[in-house]
């Protein structure tokens, strides 16, 4: 008899967790993990593997979990995914592996993400099996950016024997994993441990280097690097472009989350960086970033947090679990609403004027386009407004690298191997796709590492 539903994962109770930044889902016990692993049908077709952008051998690792050989399970995952503790927590499994799970046709799909997290945490707790990198090839590669794309590319190149240095603009490696995704969803200690693993492997990491300012891509070649991988992400915040957006209390999600996560404003004044949080918070947008900002605002002590989204629940790009958690915690959601102007006094935000929308015909993205309803203006009280309507590729590296072609949207043009218009320069992750997912960035980093290796092998 197969259980119809996944073994539930214990979580912090919503009432108490809105007052702390500790992780919300608490993870499986060994017993729970083995039970959940037992739900896998081990179907021959294994559609889950193809649903995974880095093709983790899911049936194999789940098989190991079922028999209690967690070390072997970890080894299986790590063959293709070097950040499982991260992926198990933040991947949109419902549209990837779990979305195509055979069991899911009739019952709840197997909890692949939860099992992946369990295995990764088990390994972190019981000591990571050290991998010996092969003998050095003497070839040097520079990696720009230490998000999931850069970290994955660096790890793979190192495992191929190359000497790798990662250059990161901020003072901590990890990219969005460090500055964007909040502690309660992805503890920074988990990211730090993954980065530490990379260091142990012998990957060099130089923080506080802004490529394009501190040194250019051509400067890196001049320093003796033979290939450069650009994984600089989509770090440029988009604003609404409406009047009043520069009032105090108006934040980009990037600023709001960076203050809280990277700079630890939630521990102010123990940490020096403050963040202003009002009692009435509006978060504009419907993606993971919006959910993260809304849930962060609650934890900082806001009385009321409302997500304003211009489409409906169906079009929300956020992970299902994030929307669920946000609502459980008391985040309110207003659909088909768009702010058109912000008002304040003495430079400080006080109100937002919004318009109601209705869904029109589909746009380029295939989603139905929201159109304003004339005369539907209304005003709400808002003292903190967080704009989470998307991020664009960071223009600095493309702008300072002659011959590197970019698209009209500002993304670096690269093929599926990460090769760009410049020989020896590779790119992948959000800088190529625009804001996407952790796992797709990792996949791109992997592809590019293989391509860099071929390039170096071919005589560079």
């Amino acid at each position, binding site marked *: 008899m197969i259980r119809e539903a996944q073994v539930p994962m214990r979580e912090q109770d919503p009432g108490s967790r809105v007052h702390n930044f500790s992780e919300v889902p608490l993870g499986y016990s060994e017993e729970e993990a083995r039970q959940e692993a037992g739900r896998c049908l081990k179907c021959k077709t294994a559609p889950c593997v193809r649903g995974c952008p880095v093709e983790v051998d899911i049936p194999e690792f789940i098989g190991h979990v079922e028999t209690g050989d967690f070390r072997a399970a970890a080894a299986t995952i790590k063959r293709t995914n070097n950040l499982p503790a991260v992926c198990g927590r933040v991947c949109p499994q419902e549209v990837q592996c779990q979305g195509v799970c055979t069991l899911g046709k009739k019952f709840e799909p197997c909890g692949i993400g939860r099992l992946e997290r369990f295995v990764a945490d088990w390994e972190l707790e019981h000591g990571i099996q050290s991998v010996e990198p092969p003998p050095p090839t003497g070839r040097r590669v520079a990696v720009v950016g230490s998000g999931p794309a850069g970290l994955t590319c660096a790890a793979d190149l190192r495992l191929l024997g190359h000497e790798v240095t990662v250059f990161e*603009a*901020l*003072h901590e490696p990890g990219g969005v994993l460090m500055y964007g995704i909040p502690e309660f969803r992805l503890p920074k200690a988990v990211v730090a441990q993954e980065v530490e693993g990379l260091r142990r492997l012998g990957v060099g990491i130089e*923080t*506080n*280097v*802004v490529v394009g*300012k*501190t*040194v250019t891509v051509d400067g890196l070649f001049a320093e003796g690097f033979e290939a450069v991988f650009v994984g600089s992400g989509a*770090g*440029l*915040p988009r*604003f609404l472009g409406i009047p009043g*957006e*520069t009032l*105090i209390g108006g*934040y*980009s999600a*990037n*600023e709001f989350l*960076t*203050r809280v996560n990277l*700079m*630890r404003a939630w521990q*102010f*004044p*123990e*940490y*020096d*960086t*403050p963040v*202003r949080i009002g009692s009435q918070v509006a978060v504009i947008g419907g993606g993971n970033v919006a959910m993260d900002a809304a849930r962060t605002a609650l934890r900082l002590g806001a009385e009321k947090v409302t997500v304003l989204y211009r489409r409906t629940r169906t079009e929300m790009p956020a992970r299902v679990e994030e929307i669920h958690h946000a609502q459980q915690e008391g985040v309110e959601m207003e659909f088909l609403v768009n702010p058109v102007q912000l008002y304040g006094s*003495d*430079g400080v935000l006080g109100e937002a004027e919004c318009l109601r929308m209705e869904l029109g015909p589909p746009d380029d993205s295939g989603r139905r386009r929201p159109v304003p309803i004339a005369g539907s203006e209304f005003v709400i009280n808002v003292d903190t407004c967080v704009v989470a309507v998307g991020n664009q590729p*960071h*223009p*600095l590296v493309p702008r300072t690298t002659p011959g590197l072609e970019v698209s009209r949207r500002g993304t670096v043009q690269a093929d599926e191997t990460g090769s760009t218009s410049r020989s020896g320069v590779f790119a992948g992750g959000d800088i190529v796709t625009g804001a996407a997912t952790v796992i797709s960035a990792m996949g791109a980093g992997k592809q590019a590492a293989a391509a860099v290796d071929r390039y170096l092998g071919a005589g560079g």
Partner: protein
Amino acid sequence: MHSIVAKRPLGPEIAQYEVEAPRVARTAAPGQFVVLRLHEQGERIPLTLADWDPSRGTITLVVQALGKTTREMHELYGVGDVIRDVVGPLGEPSEVVGEGTVVCVAGGVGIAPVFPIARALKEAGARVVGIIGARSSDLLFWLERMDEATHELVVTTDDGSTGRKGLVTEPLAEILAARQVARVWAVGPAVMMKFCAATASAAGVPITVSLNPIMVDGTGMCGACRVEVGEHVRFACVDGPEFPGEEVNWDLLLERLAAYQEEERCALDKYRRMVQEATR
């Protein structure tokens, strides 16, 4: 990790630091800045480069103890101490054109960042008139260096303790009225730059100012540093920090600079208590 290799007091609460930062020193240019973070719990603050030496691999910063971080740096950081993070050079370099007469105005610690700009303008062939001012003589510094970096130097103090008594805008207005001036540069407190911009605009002379809004990353990824220039919202850290002064929305800049006043006071109080307890 960046060691402080030299520290020299320049006034009651002002000091000059020479800090190891070889990568920054290698590519720095006038008008650019660094973001530094003193320690693990520290905030990221922008500081405009006062000088740099690629051969020694060091940069020079001049810091006045104002907020929590600058006070902490002033009181607790000396030679041999290590600054956890220094990143740069950030922002666009000054557009140095070596033609005609240029007036470089500096107020208070703005003297430090104006120095490399004036020096570069002079080297490029411009005739450089310097105007530097402070509240009183003990807050003035680098008179000799500024003398060298300019062809003429006017010094003012609010109380007349050195040089001419009054504000920097007075000699500025006189010079602009009397001579053909190609451009004015003004670096200093926002209010001082605002009045310099008004003075230059009244005389019909273009003015470049170096804006100092609150920043977080300093690389264009957060928008904390948003300023309004000629009706457009710009990021001071990547689009600036220098902008045409006549187009800057000064009131917005001043308002946004005060956004965290309460929190800054709280952080400073906590720091003072900590120092008190440690010295008791």
